[in-house]
């Protein structure tokens, strides 16, 4: 079955530490890939997206993500987390020739002072 998996429901990191949030998908061909952030009481905001080309994509707020075809993964990273990064992060995929997005269940990030 087609799916988007974010295996970590909650992650806690210390401020200044590095961060990696995992996302795996199971679709036949490489889909379009996205990461969104949702702050409390807010809508989702796009952090970055991958369509094709360079497998390391840069986004806003210092985030980056790497597409690994062999692992069907699109993990989100940040070298140094700030307290304001505490939020919920969603991975999303758009299969080619489809017209709707599929979202993962989200990873809630807590940042310790």
């Amino acid at each position, binding site marked *: 079955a087609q799916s988007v998996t974010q295996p970590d429901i909650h992650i806690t990191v210390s401020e200044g530490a590095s961060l990696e949030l995992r996302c795996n998908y199971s679709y036949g061909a490489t889909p*379009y890939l996205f990461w*969104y952030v949702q702050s409390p*009481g*807010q*809508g*989702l*905001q*796009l952090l970055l*997206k991958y*369509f094709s080309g360079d497998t390391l994509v840069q986004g806003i707020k210092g985030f980056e993500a790497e597409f690994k075809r062999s692992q069907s993964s699109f993990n989100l990273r940040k070298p140094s987390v700030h307290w304001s990064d505490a939020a*919920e992060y*969603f991975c999303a995929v*758009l299969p080619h020739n*489809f*017209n*709707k*997005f599929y*979202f993962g*269940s*989200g990873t809630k990030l807590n940042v310790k002072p």
Partner: protein
Amino acid sequence: DTAVSQTPKYLVTQMGNDKSIKCEQNLGHDTMYWYKQDSKKFLKIMFSYNNKELIINETVPNRFSPKSPDKAHLNLHINSLELGDSAVYFCASSPRGPPDTQYFGPGTRLTVL
């Protein structure tokens, strides 16, 4: 300036009532969406419209009826509300549809008692 706005932000109502949620975007986008985010944070597409034309109509109960009076507005009307309708409903828009970036509204938290 709010790009995608939703009203109301909170909606508490009794089972069996009929309610509407309004969405407006001032981005000049052609495509608008309704998503439902359940208590486990899963975000699932319900409907999408492109230039007032229904494009996606997921398997949601007939009690849910979207209406797009013009391409800047996409309202969601829900008849005979049930407990299971309690969720956060997000409106979004994108310039031309997938894979264009979606811009989300702040959400409407619906609680059915």
